[in-house]
């Protein structure tokens, strides 16, 4: 990723221990989320927690910040044992967390979100002063923000800055960042790393959780690897390599392979968009998009988040009606006819937001598997359960069982269940011709990500048409036969993957014309 980000330069031996966990254990019903975990964070260091989905990283971080309490074991702050009963007590000890799922109030302004719950605020609020202080912090750590902006108007990257400013404002000098880059564009991630650098140079310590080994190597000083709730190793970044870390994490060597189609494609396209335009509030979110995906190929949509990808996906899936133009699946016009019509025409759509639109948090996993079954009126619970059990094994899904509620799954495992349902359906179901997947491997550990790519590849080899929408350029390049770049709702570049260079694609993504 970024080579210009240097790990901390102070020798480790001269630094004190900012935060430590000793022998920490946390159980959830049916799951041992953390088992006898030891963890140590030095002052001024960036320490990465690495591990597969469900390894227990978020749980450990939640205990370090006071959101969860350990069942056994002890947390130490600067060498002294502490007990944190709530995030408030964590903040009082200078420990703040930025969650995997943001905790912001969309209707509030940036400043209001930041000062929320601050006991030092006077009873009568002084908005001017709060805004000034927020401005100060955002400047000092390179987190550009307008304190008066309303959060619902902000981009994902900006919202994350608000989260960081929030904990800094409360005086935290230990920051826990749970998969902060999962939602960021490469550029935004770079900015974040610069911020992390400026924080550690002031002596603050950062716990960083990520699946992207490139960034882990670039930004952290040390790495603690977790597997199935246990710590399996701790290494200094300078003594290891990305390949090495991957092995430590999954317990076997992993390679990211490049997969290409056979070159044999169907005569007619299975998925087509013709001159699609979508207007929203007087602006064209999609502008004259013409695109076709044939059976037997994968087309990748690249672009920086917010350039129309989400709208393109929902329009192609029949959910959003285009303002003009047509959308066809297998020759049938499905534009705006709803998800059901699209499904009938043979399209499967895996949305970006998986918990929420894809999975029902309060239903059991089996019921979630059954949700999209359309073959008969009666549900075949036993078959679904068997299928789920198979998926749990093949995808290495960490779940307490087939009857567990979807909400208890870790971020990555929830995705695996949904992908199992959709993608393996598409892979074996004869009448599924087209598959649209948004960010197929976001938040997945490398083992699972490889597996998903293999599945998508299988759909292609079996003659299905696949459209992959992803902000991860490497992913698009390693899978797609053709790449299409979206910028401000327009197709600005398209061509065979082999013939496009990273530079060309990157410039197109940034809207630079050659």
């Amino acid at each position, binding site marked *: 990723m970024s080579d210009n980000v240097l790990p901390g330069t102070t020798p480790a031996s001269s630094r004190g221990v900012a935060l430590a966990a000793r022998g920490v254990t946390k159980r959830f019903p049916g799951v041992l989320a953390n088992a006898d975990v030891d963890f140590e964070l030095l002052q001024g260091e960036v320490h990465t927690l690495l591990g597969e989905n469900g390894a227990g990283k978020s749980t450990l971080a939640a205990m370090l910040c006071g959101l969860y309490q350990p069942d056994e074991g002890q947390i130490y702050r600067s060498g002294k044992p502490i007990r944190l009963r709530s*995030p408030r007590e964590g903040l009082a000890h200078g420990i703040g967390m930025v969650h995997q799922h943001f905790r912001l109030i969309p209707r509030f302004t940036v400043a209001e979100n930041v000062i*929320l719950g601050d006991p030092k605020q006077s009873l*009568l609020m002084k908005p001017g002063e709060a805004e000034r202080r927020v401005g100060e912090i955002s400047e000092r750590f390179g987190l550009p923000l307008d304190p008066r902006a309303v959060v619902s108007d902000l981009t994902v990257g900006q919202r994350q800055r608000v989260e960081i400013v929030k904990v800094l404002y409360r005086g935290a000098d230990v920051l826990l960042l749970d998969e902060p880059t999962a939602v960021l564009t490469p550029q935004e991630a770079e900015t974040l790393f610069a911020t992390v650098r400026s924080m550690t140079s002031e002596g603050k310590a950062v716990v960083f959780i990520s699946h992207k080994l490139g960034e882990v190597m670039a930004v952290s000083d040390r790495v603690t690897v977790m597997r199935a709730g246990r710590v399996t190793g701790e290494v200094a970044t300078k003594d290891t390599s990305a390949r090495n870390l991957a092995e430590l994490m999954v317990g076997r060597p992993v390679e990211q392979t490049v997969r290409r189609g056979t070159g044999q494609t169907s005569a007619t396209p299975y998925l087509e968009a013709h001159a699609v335009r979508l207007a929203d509030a007087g602006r064209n979110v999609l502008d004259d998009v013409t695109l076709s995906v044939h059976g037997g190929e994968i087309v990748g949509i690249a672009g920086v988040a917010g350039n129309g990808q989400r709208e393109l996906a929902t329009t192609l899936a029949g959910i959003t009606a285009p303002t003009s133009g047509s959308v066809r699946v297998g020759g049938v016009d499905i534009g705006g006819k709803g998800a059901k019509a699209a499904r009938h025409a043979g399209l499967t759509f895996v949305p970006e937001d998986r918990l929420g639109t894809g999975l029902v948090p309060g239903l059991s996993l089996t019921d979630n598997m059954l949700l999209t079954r359309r073959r008969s009126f009666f549900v075949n619970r036993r078959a679904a359960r068997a299928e789920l059990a198979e998926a749990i094994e093949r995808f290495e899904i960490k779940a307490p069982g087939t009857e567990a509620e979807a909400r208890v799954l870790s971020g990555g495992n929830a995705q695996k269940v949904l992908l199992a349902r959709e993608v393996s359906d598409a892979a074996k179901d004869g009448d599924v011709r087209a598959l649209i997947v948004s960010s197929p491997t976001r938040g997945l550990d490398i083992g699972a990500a490889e597996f998903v790519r293999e599945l998508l590849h299988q759909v292609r080899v079996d003659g299905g048409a696949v459209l992959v929408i992803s902000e991860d350029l490497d992913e698009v390049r390693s899978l797609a036969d053709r790449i299409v770049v979206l910028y401000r709702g327009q197709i600005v570049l398209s061509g065979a993957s082999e013939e496009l260079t990273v530079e060309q694609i990157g410039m197109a993504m940034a809207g630079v014309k050659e």
Partner: protein
Amino acid sequence: MNNSAFVLMLAASMVAATPIALAALGELLAERSGVLNLGVEGMMLIGAVVAFQTGTKTGNLWVALLVGSLAGAALSAVHAVLTITLRASQIVTGLSLTIFGTGLATFVGKSIEGMPLAVDFRPTPWGPLADLPVIGPVLFKQDPIVYATIVLGFVIAFYLRRTRTGLSLRSVGESPATADSMGIPVALFRYIHVLLGGLLAGAAGAYLVLGQVPSWSQESTTGGLGWIALALVVFASWQPVRLLLGAFLFGFSRQLNFFLQGQGVAVPAELLSMLPYLLTIIVLVVWGSRDLRRRVGAPDALGIAYVRDER
């Protein structure tokens, strides 16, 4: 001219608006904390009957008002425990509260049905101001509760917008998980505001018998006002000042009805008795669609219990 039927009607509208506004302001506080309490009607009835009994026994208006309010708060405490601590369904609990409150009020009120009350809140004219044309009788010749309610509306608006606690309250109603992670005691905030809601509903009920019509009648004392208060919160988009205006409009339309009857135009009684049900349906429809709720400005977490260990 100050004695013209129309001006008198305007003045009476203020009085008619007061109990609705009081109850709705209370409900607004509870809902801003994320707790929907459909028991307003029940709490008002209890407040009314208890205030009436206390008024008869003590002959002291203010004591009667206080005890009536506390009775409303006591009933809301049941709602708070069930929905906040035990996380029961807010709709079911609230509806049961109304059924329970209505039953209890009927039972307690049997002996006093139709009896008049010796004391009541009287309009106090503001010296010469009360003689101003039109606005004199409307604004400067009302009883103290009318003024207190208006002031309360503005105080709550200020509380929500400008104070730290108000900001915390709004955050609890919008996203309890966020509030919790910022160190705000979610359950405590919900308890306090649900209780305040009950207190105000009780006061509204008390005012019905102490100010508006000094007698108790199970049939007509509230007559569905609690439901109207609930609807009013929605129509006011959870904004206190807008709520005051809405309450006045409602009071006005009620009085207009009497006014028209006086002029010989009759509005069918069935239409009026339908109103509570109609409004309930509207509340439930708006409440039932998350998208609709968001569009009309409802607190995002309204109706949702909060548990920390869940995601």
